[in-house]
């Protein structure tokens, strides 16, 4: 470490005044970043990692303030600096990349203009001939193809990965000394994530910049950072070199976090903290052979399933209007392009692919929320593909296929208590009548998913993410379904919660003999929970096989690409 660090945070405490009094989001945090160093701040939600970075830039909400400690940035006292001085610093010396790239850009302003706004603020007109040219250069630097054209694009016309490149261009336009990246790749596909992270590292190395990477992903931190700071509940619990921390974590929280990270060569049980893992370990996991025996007559059979959407474009409509032929594009878009697969009784199958590959469309068609264009969907020997989605909701078959949704918050009615949410499908389709019987069933289900009974009368906003996920699962299994479709059920959860929820799903499957269709983009998670994996790309199946085989010995190039894109923490936890 150099004698004087670029950024030195000492004893930082950040307070938020809320209705319930003062909340200390960050307490006595010490962080220093040397010139040219890449530092990771790792922690789960609520650990105060983002608040720390906002305090460094002094862009906290109105309610938040730096209560104690000091923040020194290359000799400037950030806490004491005037707002004008800070504004001068932001964007020119310290800049930031945010989590959701599309939301981080002004939706109604051309991306080029947005970059120019920053240049105009910080770079003197005398130094640069043309801000426009400079903005195009900035776009070129982040490897956006045809930057001159993209200059005039609006954020909604660009993909998520492309938007993040624009945000990076915006952040690096003035060559700052420190870049703070706040979960820069959350919500992006793994291959896009790799491309974006590689780009950030390449650019910051070339410009000899320091970087703070804020992430919940240990793999990402290990792959790209020199040093790692682990935060828990507003405090720094451990700081060490990246190589050291993964080889020899000191703090129990760090150890817990590392255990919970899905990785190669571990089973689901290994994700749980040692004590709990031992306590809940079921001696024998259901043998995959059982599932195989039922293969002769699968629970769900899908053949040549196709979903087409009409391609809507202004050019096509205009072309029709003037009797002109639209450009060569076909006028339908095949979201799902003739896929066939089967799920056996008690089997869990992972459906993996990047956004736009058709995995969600497929699950929607199986759920009968969406009509297919053609193809067969056979469930339990019945052709359910011929039933219209609007009619399906009232049929008894509905209760046998249930779904757990991606966002545990959005998928619960905010005005229903947990008990009401769980009881909802029973009241619609179940045969349990009467207040007390219903309540008893809810409590039984709550016990099954490990939700304390006293939480049943709470509303979603009074529950944590993990608890809401449990409510969602309890609701899905309330009607004894045979097939549960899990649509990225853990994508919005912290790793330690994810570990618990995945184990819960595994236990429930063994106990209730359900089959799972697990839709996910995370191959590591899929491998843990699923017997078989189906890899999809642009509406087609590119590879199919047992989880172990596909992940250890992928055949298709795309599967290989997906696997290499996942950052692996060099962990050896025993």
């Amino acid at each position: 470490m150099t004698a004087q660090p670029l950024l030195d945070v000492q004893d930082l405490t950040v307070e938020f005044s809320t209705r319930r009094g003062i909340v200390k989001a960050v307490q006595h945090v010490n962080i220093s970043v040397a010139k040219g160093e890449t530092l990771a701040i790792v922690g789960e939600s609520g650990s105060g990692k983002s608040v720390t970075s906002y305090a460094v830039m002094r862009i906290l909400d109105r309610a938040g303030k730096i209560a104690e400690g000091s923040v020194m940035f290359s000799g400037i006292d950030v806490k004491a600096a005037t707002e004008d001085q800070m504004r001068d610093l932001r964007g020119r010396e310290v800049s930031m990349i945010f989590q959701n790239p599309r939301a981080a850009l002004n939706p109604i302003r051309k991306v080029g203009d947005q970059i120019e706004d920053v240049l105009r603020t910080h770079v003197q007109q005398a130094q640069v001939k043309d801000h426009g040219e400079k903005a195009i250069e900035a776009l070129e630097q982040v490897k956006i193809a045809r930057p001159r054209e993209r200059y005039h694009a609006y954020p909604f016309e660009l993909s998520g990965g492309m938007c993040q490149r624009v945000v990076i261009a915006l952040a690096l336009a003035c060559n700052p000394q420190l870049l703070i990246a706040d979960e820069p790749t959350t919500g992006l596909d793994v291959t896009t994530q790799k491309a974006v992270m590689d780009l950030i590292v390449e650019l910051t190395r070339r410009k000899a910049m320091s970087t703070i990477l804020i992430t919940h992903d240990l793999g990402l931190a290990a792959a790209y950072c020199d040093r790692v700071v682990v935060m828990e509940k507003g405090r720094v619990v451990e700081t060490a070199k990246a190589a050291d921390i993964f080889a020899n974590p000191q703090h129990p929280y760090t150890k817990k976090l590392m255990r919970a990270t899905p990785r190669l060569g571990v089973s689901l049980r290994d994700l749980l903290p040692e004590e709990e893992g031992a306590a809940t370990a079921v001696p024998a996991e259901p043998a995959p052979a059982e599932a195989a025996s039922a293969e002769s007559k699968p629970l769900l059979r899908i053949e040549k399933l196709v979903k087409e959407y009409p391609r809507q474009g202004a050019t096509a409509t205009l072309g029709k209007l003037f009797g002109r032929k639209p450009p060569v594009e076909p006028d339908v878009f095949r979201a799902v392009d003739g896929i066939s697969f089967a799920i056996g009784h008690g089997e869990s199958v992972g459906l993996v692919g990047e956004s736009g590959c058709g995995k969600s469309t497929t699950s929607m068609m199986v759920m009968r929320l969406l009509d297919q264009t053609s193809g067969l969907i056979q469930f339990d020997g019945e052709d359910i593909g011929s039933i219209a989605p609007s009619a399906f909701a009232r049929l008894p078959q509905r209760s046998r296929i249930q779904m757990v949704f991606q966002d545990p918050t959005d998928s619960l009615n905010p005005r229903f208590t947990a008990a009401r949410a769980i009881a909802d499908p029973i009241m619609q389709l179940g045969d349990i009548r009467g207040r007390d019987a219903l309540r008893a069933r809810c409590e039984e289900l709550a016990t099954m998913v490990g939700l304390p009974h006293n939480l049943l009368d709470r509303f979603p906003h009074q529950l944590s993410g993990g608890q809401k996920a449990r409510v969602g699962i309890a609701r899905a299994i309330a009607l004894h379904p045979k097939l549960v479709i899990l649509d990225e059920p853990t994508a919005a959860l912290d790793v330690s919660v994810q570990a618990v929820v995945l184990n819960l799903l595994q236990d429930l499957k063994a106990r209730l003999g359900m089959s799972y269709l697990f839709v996910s983009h995370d191959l590591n998670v899929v491998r843990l929970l699923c017997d078989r994996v189906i890899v999809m790309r642009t509406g087609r199946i590119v590879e199919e096989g047992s989880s172990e085989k596909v992940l250890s010995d992928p055949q298709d190039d795309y599967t290989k690409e997906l696997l290499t894109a996942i950052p692996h923490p060099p962990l050896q936890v025993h």
Partner: protein
Amino acid sequence: MLTMIGKRLMFAIPSLIGVVIVTFLLTRALPGDPAAYFAGPAATKEAVEQIRKKLGLDKPLIEQFFRYASDLAHGDFGNSLTTGQPVATEIRNRLPASAELTLLGLIVSIVIAIPLGVLAATRPGSWIDHLCRVTTTAGVSLPVFFTGLVLVYVFYFRLGWSPAPLGRLDVFYSVPPTVTGFYLIDTLIARDVEAFRSALSQLILPATTLAVFSLAPIARMTRASMLAVLASEFVRTARASGLSPATVIVTYAFRNAMLPVITTLSMVFSFLLGANVLVEKVFAWPGIGSYAVEALISSDFAPVQGFVLTMAIMYVLLNLVIDILYGVIDPRVRLEG
């Protein structure tokens, strides 16, 4: 763009036809006999019958409707029974008076409400936020005729600063040659500064009355929408890039916050245009609202139908303008045209 406008106008046609049918039926369903009203209280039964025949009111409803519709197709809105004037002429004369009043009221309101809302949003909990809250609550809770009467009492009767609330122009000035129908503009075109001043002084009080009433929705909407946008992530990005507060608030926050405000504006405008009857009554304003109400009281069908149809057309045009404005501000809307 042109195709979008064309398409929108095409879509408006069925609703306009609906308006024609509904107003026709509604006026017929109203209690009161226009023939009896027109003949006067002293008329004999035969005289009333005769008038009814003359007006075509003895024909079956369907025939009456087709005659009405074919007249409409020729641009004939019918004649008013009470004034004897063609409805189209009357509306053409009176609509600019209402439009001028409403527009000026709206402009005054926008000029006050939008900055007030923006300031309140950027400084929540400050004195300006409280001022915004108090003003808007007061403005919306006072009935317009009350505000109007208070203004007249204070500024005309007590202080004598404003002229008598009697129409659009002081009797000493001649009406300017009609170009736009807006006296403020027409007097300027005619280079008659004195008349312009008179027209303006006549307008100020009623326009203020309308403005006070319409302050609330605009200011509240601006405040709420600004607060939402200021909390958004792209404003945070703009702040984190060190952009000046002016750029952040105007270029980043305000333009985005304008979208719901424009929708509110269009609603307020069309509401005021039809509903400023009370203001027109208080200030003896020869507007379209008071015309329609008088016609309605005397069971005079043609002006009522003409009024409703005019309003419907105005509403369609207004919505079109709003949609175009939307497209200008928000590039995402343009695609769907």
